[in-house]
């Protein structure tokens, strides 16, 4: 048994951390947050050149062909640095779905471009408030034309194509690839709680659509893809939790009140200890997810939901308590606390909210125990 990342994977982590410290400092995050660009194009290009985007894409399709563990390591560093790039949409979701369900020509057409960063993909499922379910989706494909409206679509402004969940004629759900620069597509940016990750509202009006995967398999493909993305996102959340905890700790050591560092007050110490506990549990659960993902274990469903629920909780706790420890400073635009608070609460929603994943976890444990 060995439940740690290997030395090579640790080295990859160091490389990624150094790279992102140089190329994704908080000024870069703020540039996207405050600017017109939906993502940091220079950083994205760099991530492609470093091979980070293609870490888990096979060599025959232009990736490095490493594996999920390496992608997990990179995800953690992206989370730590709040990298304002469409990684989760383009790599964890779009590339993964094409890897899993794409035809030969679809893989050849998209995977090399996704690995280099030349093309960006995203996933469009939500159509309004409430959970995405087989019933909630109204978008429809007739012939090979898709009509309907998706909102919000994470990285929808940055993406070249979307993988859209839609009704397949009269049948149940299928997934479709739609060129977002093609005819019948109108998109506009929407304001969100974390503008450092742009989102869009997209209207499809008879847009040409190409089926991805078997007809009627849309929901199961989606469910499996969300599990894999949940593990990878959990690493982003764990990275973000750690960084928020470090910020809070550093400030608690510096800030003096009543003649002593605020970090000497037990209320603050215990708050930080609780953040540490949550972050540690989340990290261990994320490793469990990484193990299941990388070995293709039958337990992936349980592991992914565990990693997801645990990481969401940890990042939300660390994000909000980091502001609390900073006092009034924490509520200013100028301090970085809000960047973490925003990201924590965004990531808590992007793959479906906490209660949705709690349901999945319990349902899967139940099935496992019954088996």
């Amino acid at each position, binding site marked *: 048994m*060995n*439940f740690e990342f290997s030395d090579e994977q640790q080295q990859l982590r160091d490389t990624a951390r150094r790279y992102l410290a140089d190329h994704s400092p908080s000024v870069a995050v703020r540039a996207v947050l405050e600017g017109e660009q939906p993502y940091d194009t220079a950083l994205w290009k760099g991530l492609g050149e470093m091979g980070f985007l293609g870490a888990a894409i096979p060599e025959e399709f232009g990736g490095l062909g490493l594996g999920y563990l390496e992608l997990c390591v990179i995800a953690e560093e992206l989370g730590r640095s709040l990298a304002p790039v469409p990684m989760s949409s383009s790599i964890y979701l779009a590339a993964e779905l094409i890897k899993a369900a794409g035809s030969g020509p679809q893989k050849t057409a998209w995977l090399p471009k996704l690995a280099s960063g030349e093309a960006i993909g995203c996933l469009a499922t939500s159509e309004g408030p409430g959970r995405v379910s087989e019933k909630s989706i109204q978008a429809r494909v007739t012939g090979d034309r898709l009509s309907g409206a998706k909102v919000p679509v994470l990285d929808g402004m940055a993406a070249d194509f979307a993988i859209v969940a839609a009704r397949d004629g009269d049948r149940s759900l299928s997934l479709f690839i739609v060129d977002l620069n093609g005819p019948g597509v109108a998109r506009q940016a929407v304001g969100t709680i974390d503008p450092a990750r742009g989102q869009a509202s997209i209207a499809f009006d008879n847009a040409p659509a190409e089926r991805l995967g078997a007809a009627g398999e849309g929901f199961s493909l989606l469910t499996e893809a969300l599990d894999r993305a949940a593990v990878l996102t959990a690493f982003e959340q764990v990275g973000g939790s750690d960084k928020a905890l470090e910020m809070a700790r550093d400030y608690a050591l510096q800030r003096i009140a009543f003649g002593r560092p605020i970090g000497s007050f037990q209320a603050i110490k*215990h708050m930080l200890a609780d953040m540490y506990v949550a972050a540690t549990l989340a990290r261990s659960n994320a490793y469990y997810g990484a193990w299941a993902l990388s070995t293709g274990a039958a337990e992936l469903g349980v592991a992914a939901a565990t990693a997801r629920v645990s990481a969401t909780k940890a990042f939300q706790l660390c994000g909000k308590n980091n502001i609390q420890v900073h006092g009034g400073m924490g509520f200013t635009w100028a301090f970085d606390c809000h960047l973490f608070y925003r990201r924590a609460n965004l990531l808590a929603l992007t793959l479906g909210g906490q209660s949705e994943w709690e349901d999945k976890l319990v349902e899967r444990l139940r099935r496992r125990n019954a088996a």
Partner: protein
Amino acid sequence: MNFDDTPQEAAFRAEARAWIDANAPHELLADLENAGFGGLNLSGVDPMQAMKAWQKKKFDAGWACLHWPKDYGGRGATPIERVIWGQEEGAYGKLSGTFIIGHGMCGPTLMAWATEEQKRQYLPPMAAGEDIWCQLFSEPAGGSDLAGLRTRAVKDGDDWVINGQKIWTSGAQHCQYGILITRTDPTVPKHKGLTMFFLDMKSPGVEIRPIKQVNGQSGFNEVYFTDVRIPDAQRLGAVGQGWTVSLTTLMNERLTIGSGMPTGFEEMFDFCCRMDTGEGPAVDDKAVRSKLADWACRASGLKYTGMRAISALSRGETPGPENSIGKLVAGATMQDIATFALDLMGQYGAVSDPEMAAAQSRFQAMLLRSPATRVEGGTDEILRNIIAERVLGLPADIRVDKDVPFEKIPTA
């Protein structure tokens, strides 16, 4: 990253499994699987005898105290082998309860501080379960503030003469030996005037009074010392070095009790799948699911944090204060689970009568045992202090008594 056994690990597992299959007290298995929170109820068998018998059998075949050196009654096994053994021993491991303090804390303390001759004399019978050991640390005036202890040791010829009182001493009524921390010099600041010994619990002047606990059992005791004589040869570490010696014990205590602490989650999940709320099984209820998911994450997080700690251990890293989270999370989780399980039972949740209670009275037992988990071996608050100070590097609490001679510290 994998959970696969290496060929050596697989061979070890097979050997362990075969030996357990051939030797374990199978007739107790059902009771052991049900047991867990508080006392051990074995139908028709005296638990102490069952524990001693299993321990002796393991010892004779070389399966006791696996990680100890062979010379002291162990097997010289690796940390991973110890984990594999635990997995294979399963519910039979509950028969080790009585020995935990000896094997987990007193043994390692002797190994670090006793003479070679003493180690060869005392450790093997401890490993065999023939001698049970206790930890005589806490006092009425010194629990969290252990260094505030008042039990006095005064040198008299080749002996030390002990007077004072210990409290909360688990298992003292069954023990042959104990490790005892005392004050030998009250004129220096409190951490500096302490000295550690081990003693025969049958020594004249030792009086043990069981204390009735919240759950009605008497696991712990008051221990009074009146002119008890301990030979100087039974001193562990130098005079005045007791605090340092105690840190060996406390570090091992965190490891022993911090690893694999039960949270009650599996039992709770099972219960929620069976318990009908009138609108179907409890597990279908949204509020229940949300809580179950949270507890699932805590139980799983502890399990895999343990796996990470073992991986670090087998790479040769020393386990650090980060292991404090095990008990902190497990204790609070178990208490929450117990409270909520009773809530689901409605008024009937109050029934703890084993003949009538739901779920074998397990959650009532958990309710009444879990407060102890949050106190014993370092309270939740002390553990948070440890994490904040030793892991995160925050300043220590302000100590008004630190540089004051012990005898000048004001008392209540």
